[in-house]
């Protein structure tokens, strides 16, 4: 079994034995999204307008919740140290960790989003664009977030600091992700937004793991 697959399997196995972790982020996503219509009013045209933004911000925040635990447990019990001195390059193991994190924190959001989109009276094609945008955007969030998670390992005030570091970097994903759905709704076509999102994802896949690996080694010194 390749090392990357091994680490993904390992993380998924551990999550399955403690299901609460998956469900927390998911419930957060659902609850936050539901708060907005309650706070703003049930008027359908207004809801349709704010839907892309609200869903995306909620997805962002839900991802943020799960970022802290990406490396924290491994750091605490010494397995991170073992990964750092493993013959397998640490960057590959980091890619595996990020992949596992996305499968647990990001993919469920993608799958639940259409259901929530219905609450906002989005039509089927808009929901489709939403799913594609989130499919491209949530891995991007996991990748960028992993850098912050690695930097704040074992640091005081980690959670809030993590948000401060990572949320500004999430903004382009938010702009193009929500923008894609809005562009589709207004008839302009989501192609441009989605391609930019895909481009950012490609960039992040190549660069983020290296930054995260460097940050992990710094944390282990």
């Amino acid at each position: 079994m390749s090392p990357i697959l091994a680490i993904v399997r390992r993380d998924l196995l551990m999550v399955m034995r403690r299901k609460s972790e998956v469900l927390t982020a998911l419930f957060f996503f659902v609850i936050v999204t539901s708060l907005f219509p309650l706070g703003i009013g049930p008027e359908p045209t207004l809801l349709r307008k704010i839907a892309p933004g609200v869903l995306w911000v909620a997805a962002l925040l839900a991802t943020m919740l799960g970022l802290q635990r990406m490396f924290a447990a491994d750091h605490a019990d010494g397995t991170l140290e073992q990964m750092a001195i493993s013959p397998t390059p640490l960057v590959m193991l980091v890619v595996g960790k990020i992949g596992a994190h996305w499968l647990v924190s990001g993919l469920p959001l993608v799958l639940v989003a259409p259901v929530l989109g219905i609450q906002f009276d989005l039509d089927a094609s808009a929901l489709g664009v939403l799913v594609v945008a989130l499919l491209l955007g949530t891995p991007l969030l996991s990748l960028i977030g992993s850098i912050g998670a690695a930097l704040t390992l074992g640091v005081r005030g980690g959670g809030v600091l993590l948000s401060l570091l990572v949320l500004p970097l999430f903004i382009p994903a938010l702009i193009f992700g929500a923008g894609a759905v809005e562009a589709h709704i207004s008839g302009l076509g989501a192609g441009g937004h989605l391609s930019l999102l895909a481009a950012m994802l490609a960039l992040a896949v190549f660069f983020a793991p290296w930054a995260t690996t460097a940050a992990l080694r710094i944390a282990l010194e």
Partner: protein
Amino acid sequence: MLSAHGLTCVRGDRRLFSELDLIVDGGEWLHVRGENGAGKTSLLRLLAGLTQPAEGEIRWCGEKITRADEEYRKNLLFFGHHGALKEDLTALENLEFSAAMDGAELALENALRALQRFGLKGREQLPVRVLSAGQKRRVMLARIATRNARLWILDEPFTALDVKAVDLLATLIGEHVTQGGMAILTSHQTMPIPGGRVVQL
């Protein structure tokens, strides 16, 4: 085959040790001694490649161990203060995943045999969480036994081991050294393993 020259370690403001030289060759083991805070753990982490020395260099078979030295890591086994066990996985799964992440082969029978050798018969499939502290340390012994590493760097390996387990580990290290392996250990106890040299910090 592992040689260190001119090692200097600085932690925060304190200079723990400087200009330290050491050599370990096949069939030898080093006992690193010193008071608490003298830098034993820091030295071992330097040798394992987890941290960089302020000055000096470390070489494995003549080559510098830079951070990306795969050759060195294939032959290295390191255990720090943490047990490096995942509590939610079983002892067997821990061994299997560790091997897989290292890209090494570990046959099921070998893993089971190792766990049984160290007194975990019947407990291989339990989540590590339910094992006692001593039993958890024995899983570490199994890991040491199943990983084919030439150099063992162990930080306080005898902690939390009962008398029988101490014997088992001492035998394990003894066998390893006699068969041409190398080991570097820290421990507050004197160790009943022949052929060792002391490095005093």
